[in-house]
């Protein structure tokens, strides 16, 4: 059987182009392996060979995401690979994002199997674990040898189209796809082991992590709503026409705070949505559909509520990292409390 043709993607650092000062290094490709590629090539034996290496600086990649991806993909496909390995990135955040983006794009656009490796806390893990196999590595390049030991045979398996086992068998970071396999011990014995560890305060790993809950206990009801100051906060992306803060249509990096003093109705000519995750037509025609300023003004006038808070806060929810959303919420919450707001109506889409 012919050897699999492998392309290796690495950053400027691992290519020994330079450190942070060379992070804007533009994509280039070289024949054969470079840097850590040597270890992969050795591990592949006679089954595969690194035919080319594509190198890109982390800053350049992340700051020019779309064009850099296109450029890198072009360089990769010119080698006509059967398999692509990106990284491993260990705990380097921007490198992780680049490796994840490249590997996911290779699978999606080129239909070629691709993997990467990262430390479990690398931000690239959460962004890409559902799209591609990410082998779990140590948190620094000192773990390169161990990473290669797992990544190389796994990559070969993937390239050969063999059945991929459960995450715990193969070494990839759990991707939400449940895969059956036979454990060494029966379930009851595993349960006893787990209980003894839990009782002793030792670490244990649940076989089925519960879905992430971030439930918030509801506050007691407002005693007298007719005296309360109500604020509007939305993840539906409603912004003044023109989107003055340039809130991104997805993966928002910020939220906006907008004065609605004297605004009684959000109209087509004054407000719109920045959200890219739903059909914006009806929100753009009448943004009250997402952020009900009109009805709250009416209630304010009728004395059904105390008053509508002077500012509303807005961001786009789609693709926005939970950690970012939490940070926005904390900041917004602090201001609302300081401003004496009693209750918030939070609208989504």
């Amino acid at each position, binding site marked *: 059987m012919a050897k699999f043709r492998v392309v290796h993607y690495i950053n400027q650092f691992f290519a020994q182009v330079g450190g942070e000062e060379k992070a804007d290094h533009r994509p280039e490709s070289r024949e054969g392996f470079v840097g850590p590629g040597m270890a992969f090539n050795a591990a592949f034996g006679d089954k595969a060979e690194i035919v080319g290496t594509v190198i890109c600086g982390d800053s350049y990649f992340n700051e020019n995401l779309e064009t850099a991806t296109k450029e890198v993909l072009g360089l990769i496909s010119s080698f006509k690979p059967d398999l692509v390995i990106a990284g491993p990135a260990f705990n380097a955040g921007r490198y992780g994002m680049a490796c994840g983006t490249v590997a996911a794009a290779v699978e999606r656009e080129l239909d070629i199997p691709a993997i990467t490796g990262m430390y479990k806390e690398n931000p690239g893990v959460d962004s890409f674990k559902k799209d591609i196999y990410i082998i779990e590595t140590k948190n620094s390049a000192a773990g390169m040898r161990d990473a290669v030991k797992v990544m190389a045979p796994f990559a070969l398996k993937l390239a050969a189209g063999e059945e991929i086992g459960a995450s715990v068998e193969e070494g990839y970071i759990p991707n939400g796809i449940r895969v059956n396999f036979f454990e060494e011990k029966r379930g009851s014995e595993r349960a006893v082991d787990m209980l003894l560890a839990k009782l002793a305060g030792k670490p244990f790993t649940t076989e089925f992590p519960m879905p992430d809950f971030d439930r918030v206990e*509801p506050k007691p009801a*407002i005693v007298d709503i007719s005296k309360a100051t109500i604020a509007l906060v939305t993840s539906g992306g409603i912004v003044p026409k023109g989107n003055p803060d340039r809130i991104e249509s997805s993966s928002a990096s910020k939220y906006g705070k907008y004065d609605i003093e004297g605004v009684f109705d959000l109209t087509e000519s004054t407000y719109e949505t920045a959200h890219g995750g739903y059909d914006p037509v009806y929100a753009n025609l*009448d943004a009250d*559909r997402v952020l009900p300023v*009109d009805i*709250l003004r009416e*209630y304010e006038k009728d004395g059904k509520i105390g008053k509508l808070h002077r500012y509303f806060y807005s961001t786009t929810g789609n693709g926005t990292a939970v950690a970012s959303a939490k940070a926005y919420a904390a900041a917004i919450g602090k201001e609302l409390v300081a401003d004496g707001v009693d209750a918030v109506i939070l609208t989504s889409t």
Partner: protein
Amino acid sequence: MNRAKGVVLFALCFVFGRKQSSGKERYLILITNNPKFQSDPEPRCDTEYIAGSYRDVLILVRDRIHQGHRLLSHPLSGSVKPNETPYKSILISKNTGGLDMDSLQIIEDSISTCDKFMQNPIKYGHNNQDALLADFSEVDYRLIVAAIASASR
């Protein structure tokens, strides 16, 4: 202008957090698509029969929960999966109060589970298996009769 959405949102912030009165409801409503309940006089409780799917029953129950009824029997009664049996019977309270969050949680989880199973091939009704349908009907019937017995204790 869109009043409706604003009103609903506004209403929601009232409804959440209101304390649900506890105490055992003696009066039940059975929501079912099981034809056996149309002919059978046995369960002596109000019965709302709908000519719909398993999922339609879940959705109707969810709507009733939104209206303040409480869920009294588990929507996923029985080990027969949602893509295996066409029949579903569920008990809710006759009286209404504030929105019961536990009921809402269970019915929403059940709808998700139903949708998950419906992605798999549907396993009933092919090959004109009338006898099979009768058996599904019987099992659904018996399970809810057991629940009614619990309620009447």
